[in-house]
């Protein structure tokens, strides 16, 4: 019989998630201190963010998290076909999120608002701080989203092939945990960046 330790595998995934929490946690701490120092500048700068796109992306990410969670149920019940469909919906959601981000960032870069731009140099220190944090935090979050998308694509193919099945699905669970982490970070990023106007 092959050696397996699903609890150990999940525990390992959680330890990794803890390092991610502390990584983003540091950034949230920088945000908190900068915001207390430059609260009016942060409010002014946040007006430039598109709260509508931010809201759409929040809904899209929550939906994608639910479909991942449901795909685990599907695999547990032996319905791999449904699990593949649910994971595919998750990946579609990720794509929608990325397209929205492309338009959001694209617009800002178009009007000359990006780190190191001439326009950025004319802004006050607090506003520069806000946009730097905005680009860095959403950028890092987006990077996680891409990695999560790659992981879930691999997981989806394994579910389709049957390598992940009702008797052995810890990889799907861990991929799901990673995806939920991406969602978790966005839950805090969204109100802090988009809703402070």
């Amino acid at each position, binding site marked *: 019989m092959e050696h397996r330790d699903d609890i150990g595998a999940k525990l390992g995934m959680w330890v990794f998630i803890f390092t991610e929490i502390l990584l983003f946690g540091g950034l949230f701490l920088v945000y908190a201190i900068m915001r207390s120092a430059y609260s009016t500048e942060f409010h002014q700068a946040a007006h430039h963010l598109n*709260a509508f796109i931010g809201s759409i992306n929040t809904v899209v990410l929550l939906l994608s998290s639910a479909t991942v969670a449901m795909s685990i149920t599907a695999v547990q019940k032996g319905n791999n076909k449904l699990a593949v469909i649910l994971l595919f919906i998750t990946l579609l959601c990720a794509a929608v999120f990325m397209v929205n981000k492309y338009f959001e960032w694209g617009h800002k870069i178009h009007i000359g608002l990006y780190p190191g731009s001439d326009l950025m140099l004319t802004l006050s220190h607090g506003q520069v701080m806000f946009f730097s944090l905005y680009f860095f935090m959403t950028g890092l979050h987006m990077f996680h989203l891409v990695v999560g998308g790659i992981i879930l694509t691999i997981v989806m193919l394994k579910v389709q092939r049957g390598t992940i099945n009702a008797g052995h699905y810890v990889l799907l669970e861990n991929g799901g945990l990673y995806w939920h982490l991406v969602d*978790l970070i966005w839950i805090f990023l969204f109100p802090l960046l988009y809703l402070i106007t």
Partner: protein
Amino acid sequence: METETVHITPYRAHAWVLITLLALTFLTITVTWIDLSALTVLVAMLIASVKAYIVLTYFMHLKFESSLFRVFVIMVLAIYVLVILFTLSDYLFR
């Protein structure tokens, strides 16, 4: 090999969690339309924390894992809160 009981969350439970999270998102957006001045951040963070708790408990399945997982998560969050408190106390009262 020891047999462990596997908890299968029904689809409907996931759907309800999703609806709750969407409702809280709607709430957090509408709350910003009301001017609560200093309380705005607090309310936003409170709602975000409730959402995070729901994601951790149900989507991330902590409710049905061994208590070891919950202890770990609580410890890490406690460490993070300590880091915040120490840093802020230094910044705000130096």
